């Protein structure tokens, strides 16, 4: 009789299904996973240490680069931590803008997750569909901040600037004739809110399209149903948050339970799974996209009716306007001190968390009164999820490992930090 041995297989870090730079050492008995040992840190940039050598505001763009598919939500937690330490109020309009962009970010994140997850499991089309919609939302990012991804739009005390009145237009080029360009620019003729409203009108139909492709798809269900089951008790013990916790049947959402900004005024539902498997987590995230769309719609309606300031008028924290700076000595000093020395945050420590698309994203900020953080700890949701990789994949086949990585929605920018 032939001798049967366990195999140790190396998966990644360049494997396309490893979602970046995950190196997974799998111990296999035939095709069944006995042990999975993720090796992370290949994208470690020591963001927390770098933040200790930068002023508080200088670290805002680093936050974009943590979870680089849900940029503004990272900034949000960081700004909330600073505001909590400073005991600073954010103007109401800025709070609505933040909520709106948090939800736009959630849709962006879930679209990428959906496309990449389906691609891993073998469905190519969804990826192309998802990126079609991402394009519109990234245009909104660009219109408001000037950058398609790394926005640095949220600032301590509010947001960098108000929503623009115009959207960038497509220009005539040799690939598209004038008629096609005109059609493309149709929903871009008004303000950014008009553009987003048009998007929210269209988006539920797009989600239906994804569901047509996947929800009842036999292959999709064969690959996801009963894969990576996590019981509610284990999900809590393993530190799961967000859709991973809700997929296991716990109705926990910081937007409802510990509301921040204006989430307590929003109408939306929390989808919850029943079996705690990958398919339930898929359904949860699909429904979250529909709910996010609802929230964006409510924010648009409010923002249309209520103009106002979008950043705090405390010039020890937020810069004065350019006009004021040019004509007023005191404002000039404020501007100079703010951009050379930075914000002085009172001594203390705080933890601020947001319901990030992936789970609870928290910033534990510690200040000793200086213009730089003393210690900054980033609590990344994906870190706790990936730590459970071993437990979730044990006893599954190799091909299910890919599905489990997909269902966890891992992004290495935040896990490695």
């Amino acid at each position: 009789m032939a001798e049967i041995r366990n195999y140790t297989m190396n998966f990644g870090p360049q494997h396309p299904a490893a979602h970046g730079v995950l190196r997974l050492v799998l111990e296999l008995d035939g095709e069944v996973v006995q042990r999975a040992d993720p090796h992370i840190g290949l994208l470690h940039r020591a963001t927390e240490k770098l933040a200790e050598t930068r002023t508080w505001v200088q670290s805002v763009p680093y936050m974009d680069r943590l979870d680089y598919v849900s940029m503004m939500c990272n900034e949000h937690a960081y700004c909330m931590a600073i505001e909590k330490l400073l005991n600073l109020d954010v103007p109401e309009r800025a709070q609505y803008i933040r909520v709106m962009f948090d939800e736009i970010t959630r849709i962006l994140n879930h679209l990428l997750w959906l496309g990449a997850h389906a691609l891993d499991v073998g469905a190519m089309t969804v990826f192309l569909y998802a990126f079609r919609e991402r394009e519109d939302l990234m245009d909104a990012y660009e219109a408001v901040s000037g950058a398609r991804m790394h926005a640095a739009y949220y600032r301590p005390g509010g947001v960098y600037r108000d929503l623009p009145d115009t959207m960038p237009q497509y220009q005539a080029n040799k690939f598209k004739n004038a008629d096609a360009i005109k059609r493309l620019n149709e929903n871009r003729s008004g303000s950014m809110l008009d553009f987003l409203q048009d998007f929210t009108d269209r988006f539920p139909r797009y989600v239906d399209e994804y569901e047509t492709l996947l929800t009842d798809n036999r292959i999709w269900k064969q690959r996801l149903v009963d894969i990576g089951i996590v019981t509610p008790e284990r999900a809590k013990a393993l530190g799961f948050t967000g859709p991973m916790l809700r997929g296991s049947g716990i109705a926990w959402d910081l937007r409802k339970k510990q509301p921040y900004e204006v989430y307590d005024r929003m109408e939306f539902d929390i989808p919850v799974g029943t079996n705690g498997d990958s398919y339930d987590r898929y359904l949860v995230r699909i429904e979250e996209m529909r709910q996010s769309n609802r929230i964006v719609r409510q924010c648009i309606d409010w923002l249309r009716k209520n103009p106002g300031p979008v950043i705090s008028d405390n010039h020890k924290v937020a810069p004065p306007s350019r006009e004021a700076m040019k004509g007023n000595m005191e404002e000039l000093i404020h501007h100079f001190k703010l951009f050379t020395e930075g914000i002085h945050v009172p001594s203390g420590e705080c933890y601020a968390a947001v319901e990030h698309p992936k789970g609870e994203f928290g910033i534990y900020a510690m200040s000793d009164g200086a213009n730089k953080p003393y210690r900054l700890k980033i609590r990344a949701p994906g870190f706790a999820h990936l730590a459970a990789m071993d437990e979730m994949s044990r006893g599954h086949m190799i091909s299910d490992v890919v599905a489990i990585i997909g269902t966890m929605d891992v992004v290495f920018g935040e896990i490695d930090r």
Partner: protein
Amino acid sequence: MSTRIESLRDALVAQFGDKIRATLALGELTVEVAAEDYHDISLALRDHADTPFEQLIDLCGVDYSTHTSRSEGLRYAVVVHLMSVAANLRLRLRTFAADDGFPVVASVNDVWPAANWFEREAFDLFGILFAGHGDLRRLLTDYGFVGHPFRKDFPISGHVEMRYDPDTKRVIYQPVTIAPREVTPRVVREENYGDVGHG
């Protein structure tokens, strides 16, 4: 919310007495415990009847050696953020490692399985050892990395750099060639600096 956190503080003080030092600031409750009580209190908090802290949200190391107001005492601390899903409350638990030269803290991996990677990270970055962890390998830094980079005495540019050496035709490590540069100095201003009426 704030009254609920106050009653939690009172309940914890009543239960644990002088084993804990509870402070309430910015609406957040911080509980400091001695290193020898850390594991027992963690277990008691998790299995607490009214407010079971069943979730470990975060665990991190802190190096207090250059802190303007707390640099006198022990150097390394472990800070744990707990959450109670049932009671919708948060709690911060802090414990200092007794020996600065050889910081050891009990592992809470058996209390909350989520602590596994967080403790590995704290070991990797701060060199804090977690007694009873069982799998305390480095997590984030490179294979064969020397030192604990998040300690305050570890320079931001590190000690070694890696490059391809055309002579030996392989990747080599060498001492860093760039000098650390600080564009904006770190300053701590006195209270109410620059406020109206302060000059």
